[in-house]
């Protein structure tokens, strides 16, 4: 039962499937035919196919899968799904495939299958339909495809070269050489350039060569690399007369395609009945004009096209809104002294125009005046508030008053001069008064100051002067317009002087000066001191003491003081001013300028201060002349002529510098400063700050030395470079000679005399047997025996004893435990101690102080109770050396020190030590108290 049921289920399922499948199969409409062709110009494959008629009848929505296959490379290069809804017309279906690869190069095959939308079953593929490439043909010589292709920059391009049958492609390359993928397979060569760029060459060549060497074994092709045109920039249209429209535009970037491939511009008007006959090929600014007759609205399309693309630009406009009038022309004017009415002509286009007049003033400022021209064929504008007798430049441009689009070009500029008027303001006048015979010469100066306007051409100046005190008849002179000064003579009375300028219209207001009473000029006799002032980079600056009574100040000076006339100048300042920077292009360095400061009240001027100064001080022109030189062995005194300090100097004299140095070496004299010359030699410099000084002494010179020296004057501008020196020789110093004489000759003379009188001297100074009474030994008062003095031995405290080593002495003490030999040795020992100390000095040797007290007595009389020590510092050599001396020094005094403190002390130190006991006997033997 169960098995039957299972079989039934399976059967039912199969039946259902079978029914469904057969139902679906009934919706499969296979492709009935495929036709394929190639369009080599467009490089397209055109495919045509169809499905069953029933599908058309059913107006089925169908999908088709189309495959394109390249035979030579055995690759399906394209697969596309196409959805189509069939119609009842039963027309076959078409599909076009654009090939990137030249279709000539190889065979291409196409197959198609279909599927109805209501079904999920694809039909069987149609059979491959093939269009053959030229690689199957029997051509003579190689052929390159494509040729003369125009390629957009940045894209890829592929070439093939098909060789002759039986030949192989040997070479396939580009000129100029650019990177490319090259593949050669037998008689077919393939070349692909990726992202091709413009290489400066307009035309890239492709060469192909077969494996033979004849001319026909070559083929050549070429291609262009360019860019599609840019959309035209700044495309706009306008009209000057509402009848002719002109459109302008900029073409954009270079397309690298020239000649017949260059971009072509075509204009068209949608609203026009007539085509615009305007095809333009332009490189920079493009334009096109055409007649629109009565047309008011335009819709202009500009199309630019080259083989790589097409761009458009549009402009839709009302003609009356694009009015660009022609420039105004034929300008003329009417003018007074302060007004100009300017007229111009316009092209009458029936549209109200609005104009602007630009006026260029003499000071460079520009004013714009607006005016309306209405519908007239001329326009005008009145310019007011102008300066008399002044030149103005005016030009006009116009635009539509309503729906303004653009100003016209400017008209030609018109130069207009206003008419003259009477001079306004007053002349700036000044005077210079100099005493004359029986009066004063007054030189009057005038100039057109900032407050004065000539308002025309000045034709003369009128000068009038009259006495202030009485009502005498005024005197008057008229001077030419070229004059700016005149001289009049007046007596010592007070005078009122007025000066006026006159032009063709009238006189100016008078400028008045009052010359006060006085016989003298304004500068002379003044007690004012001249104050020095300093120049700056911008001029000469100075100040003055303000006085409240004056309403203005005047400063005058001469620009060229050395000349006559001196180019007299003056400048006015207000009452609140008390300083001025006087600058002039005529100021030159090294010239002294004199300034006079006047205070003015009620047209009467009074000299207040005098200033003098330089724009820039310069060094003096020459050096002081050294008239006299006084020379000693260590000093030199220089005397020079008085040096001028007046205005002939190019600066204020500040003093002098004296330079000196030994001829052969640099100078370093005491009290001087160092001055280094350009040659690096060093001079000693002494400054004298008093310009009146005329002498100077240089001390501390070396005698018998050659010196060079110079005296330089200096100003605020410094001094001139040192060029010339004077040379001196200091004399020999005689004092040294005298000293030498004194030190050498006198002692020598004394010594000679001593030598000559040696006996007498010996007798006198060092008798063999001194007179007892003359000996200091007996200069005591202790004990007298008769006429002789007796010294108690107990009172005698000897400090030093001299030993007479003569044989007589030895005889006196035959039992002495200290023989003479031993005494001599001791003496030697002591003596060597002195020598030793001396040697210490000489060798700079410091011996270790010995605390031992050693007192030596050669005299046996004292030796009994005195300890005798040997000298531990004795040097054997010294001792040896001293022995022969002792043997010959038979009767020479010997010195014995009692060293209680410092055994290492030198004899000199010992002598200098007052605390130590010392007794130096000239005759030690006597000191021994032989008489006692």
């Amino acid at each position, binding site marked *: 039962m169960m098995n039957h049921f299972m079989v039934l289920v399976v059967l039912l399922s199969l039946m259902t499937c079978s029914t469904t499948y057969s139902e679906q199969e009934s919706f499969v409409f296979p492709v009935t035919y495929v036709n394929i062709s190639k369009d080599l110009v467009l490089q397209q494959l055109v495919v045509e196919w169809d499905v069953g008629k029933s599908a058309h009848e059913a107006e089925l929505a169908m999908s088709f899968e189309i495959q394109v296959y390249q035979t030579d490379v055995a690759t399906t290069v394209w697969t596309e799904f196409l959805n189509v809804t069939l119609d009842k017309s039963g027309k076959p279906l078409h599909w076009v495939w654009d090939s990137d690869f030249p279709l000539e190069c190889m065979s291409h095959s196409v197959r198609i299958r279909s599927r109805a939308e209501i079904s999920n079953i694809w039909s069987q593929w149609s059979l491959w339909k093939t269009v053959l490439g030229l690689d199957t043909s029997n051509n003579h010589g190689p052929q390159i495809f494509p040729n003369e292709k125009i390629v957009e920059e940045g894209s890829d391009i592929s070439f093939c070269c098909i060789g002759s049958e039986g030949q192989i492609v040997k070479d396939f390359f580009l000129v100029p050489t650019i990177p490319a993928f090259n593949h050669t397979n037998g008689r077919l060569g393939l070349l692909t350039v990726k992202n091709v760029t413009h290489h400066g060459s307009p035309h890239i060549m492709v060469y192909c060569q077969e494996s033979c060497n004849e001319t026909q074994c070559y083929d050549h*092709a070429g291609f262009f690399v360019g860019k599609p045109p840019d959309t035209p920039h700044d495309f706009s249209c306008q009209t000057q007369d509402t009848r002719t429209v002109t459109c302008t535009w900029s073409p954009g970037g270079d397309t690298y395609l*020239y000649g*017949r491939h260059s971009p072509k511009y075509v204009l068209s008007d949608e609203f026009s009945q007539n085509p615009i006959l305007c095809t333009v090929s332009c*490189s920079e600014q493009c334009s096109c004009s055409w007649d629109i007759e009565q047309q008011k609205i335009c819709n202009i399309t500009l199309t630019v096209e080259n083989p790589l693309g097409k761009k458009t630009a549009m402009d839709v406009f009302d003609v009356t809104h694009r009015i660009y009038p022609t420039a105004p022309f034929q300008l003329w004017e009417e003018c007074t002294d302060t007004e100009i009415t300017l007229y111009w002509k316009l092209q009458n286009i029936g549209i109200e125009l609005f104009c602007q007049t630009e006026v260029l003033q003499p000071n460079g400022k520009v004013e714009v005046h607006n005016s309306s021209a209405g519908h007239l064929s001329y326009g005008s504008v009145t310019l007011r508030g102008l300066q008399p007798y002044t030149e103005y430049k005016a030009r006009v441009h116009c635009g539509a008053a309503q729906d303004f689009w653009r100003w016209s070009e400017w008209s030609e500029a018109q130069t207009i001069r206003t008419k003259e008027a009477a001079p306004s303001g007053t002349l700036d006048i000044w005077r210079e008064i100099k005493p004359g015979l029986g009066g004063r010469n007054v030189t009057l100066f005038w100039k057109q100051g900032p407050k004065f306007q000539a308002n025309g051409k000045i034709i003369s100046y009128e000068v009038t002067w009259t006495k202030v005190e009485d009502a005498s008849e005024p005197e008057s002179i008229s001077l030419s317009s070229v004059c700016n000064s005149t001289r009049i003579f007046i007596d010592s009375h007070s005078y009122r002087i007025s000066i006026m300028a006159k032009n063709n219209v009238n006189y100016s207001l008078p400028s008045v000066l009052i010359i006060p009473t006085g016989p003298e000029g304004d500068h002379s006799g003044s007690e004012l001191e001249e104050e020095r002032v300093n120049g700056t980079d911008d001029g000469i600056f100075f100040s003055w003491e303000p006085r409240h009574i004056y309403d203005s100040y005047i400063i005058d000076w001469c620009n060229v003081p050395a000349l006559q006339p001196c180019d007299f100048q003056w400048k006015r300042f207000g009452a609140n001013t008390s300083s001025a920077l006087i600058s002039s292009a005529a100021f030159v360095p090294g010239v002294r300028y004199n300034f006079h400061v006047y205070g003015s009240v009620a047209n009467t001027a009074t000299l207040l201060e005098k200033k003098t100064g330089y724009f820039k001080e310069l060094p003096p022109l020459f050096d002081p002349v050294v008239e006299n030189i006084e020379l000693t062995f260590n000093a030199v005194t220089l005397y020079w002529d008085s040096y001028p300090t007046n205005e002939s100097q190019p600066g204020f004299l500040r003093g002098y510098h004296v330079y000196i140095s030994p001829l052969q070496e640099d100078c370093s004299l005491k009290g001087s400063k160092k001055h280094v010359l350009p040659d690096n030699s060093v001079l000693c410099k002494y400054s004298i700050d008093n310009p009146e000084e005329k002498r100077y002494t240089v001390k501390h010179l070396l005698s018998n030395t050659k010196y060079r020296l110079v005296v330089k004057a200096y100003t605020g501008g410094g001094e001139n470079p040192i060029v010339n020196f004077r040379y001196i020789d200091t004399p020999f110093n005689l004092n040294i000679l005298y000293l030498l004489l004194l030190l050498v000759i006198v002692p020598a003379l004394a010594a000679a005399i001593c030598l000559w009188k040696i006996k007498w001297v010996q007798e006198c100074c060092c008798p063999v047997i001194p007179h007892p009474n003359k000996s200091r030994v007996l200069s005591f008062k202790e004990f007298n025996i008769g006429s002789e003095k007796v010294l108690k031995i107990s009172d005698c405290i000897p400090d030093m004893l001299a030993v007479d080593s003569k044989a007589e002495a030895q005889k006196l003490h035959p039992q002495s435990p200290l023989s003479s030999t031993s005494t001599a040795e001791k003496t030697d020992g002591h003596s060597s101690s002195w020598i030793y100390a001396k040697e210490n000095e000489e060798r700079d040797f410091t011996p270790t102080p010995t605390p031992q007290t050693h007192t030596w007595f050669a005299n046996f009389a004292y030796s009994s109770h005195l300890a005798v020590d040997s000298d531990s510092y004795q040097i054997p050599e010294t001792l040896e050396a001293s022995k022969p001396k002792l043997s010959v020094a038979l009767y020479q005094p010997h010195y014995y020190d009692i060293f209680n403190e410092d055994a290492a002390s030198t004899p000199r130190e010992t002598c200098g030590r007052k605390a130590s006991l010392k007794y130096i006997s000239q005759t030690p033997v006597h000191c021994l108290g032989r008489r006692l």
Partner: protein
Amino acid sequence: MRRDGWLPGVLGAVTKGLLILWAVPGQGGRSLQHPTLQQVQALVRHMAEDAQELFTFYEKDQGLAIGHLCRTNRPPEWLRGPSLGTRGLRGLRGTMTHMAQALQDITRHQRDLNPPGAEILRRLASAHLKVRGLLNNLEGLYPAPSPHPTRRLPPGPTAPTKVFRQKLEGCQILWSYSRFLVKLNTLLETRRLRAHRQRQRAHQGSRMPMSS
């Protein structure tokens, strides 16, 4: 900045300019007068140098300096020769008329390939002017009997042909033209030397009896 060769270049250009001023009648503000044979010879010499330079530049600029593509041994009919036969330089007029037309055609082709003002266009225009100058000289030297001394050739084909073919043809014409001028210059020079020697011989011959 180094400017090696600048001075010789300038001097060469000035020399050429002066030569043209002398060789072409009416140049340099002079009144028109018949040219001399020497002037024609000088102009031919200059043109021969110029044509060689033009060909070299063209061949390289156009990417044709491969396998001597341009250096054909088969020049066009009108550029074969030259032969200074019985007609002498008169026969040159026809060649130069053709050459002027050929240069115009080459220039037109090159305008499709180059921006305005390109060097090749400038050189072609210069060569064309010189050919026109030589034609004028020849007209002055050998006035034609007919009122239309130079037969105007119809303009070249304007229908677009393959760009490469045009370039190659232009290149081959320029090569043949340069060869032609070199040979012509050599011939003229030989002629001039021969004439000079004959004159010298004649002059010496006329002086011999005097000296003997």
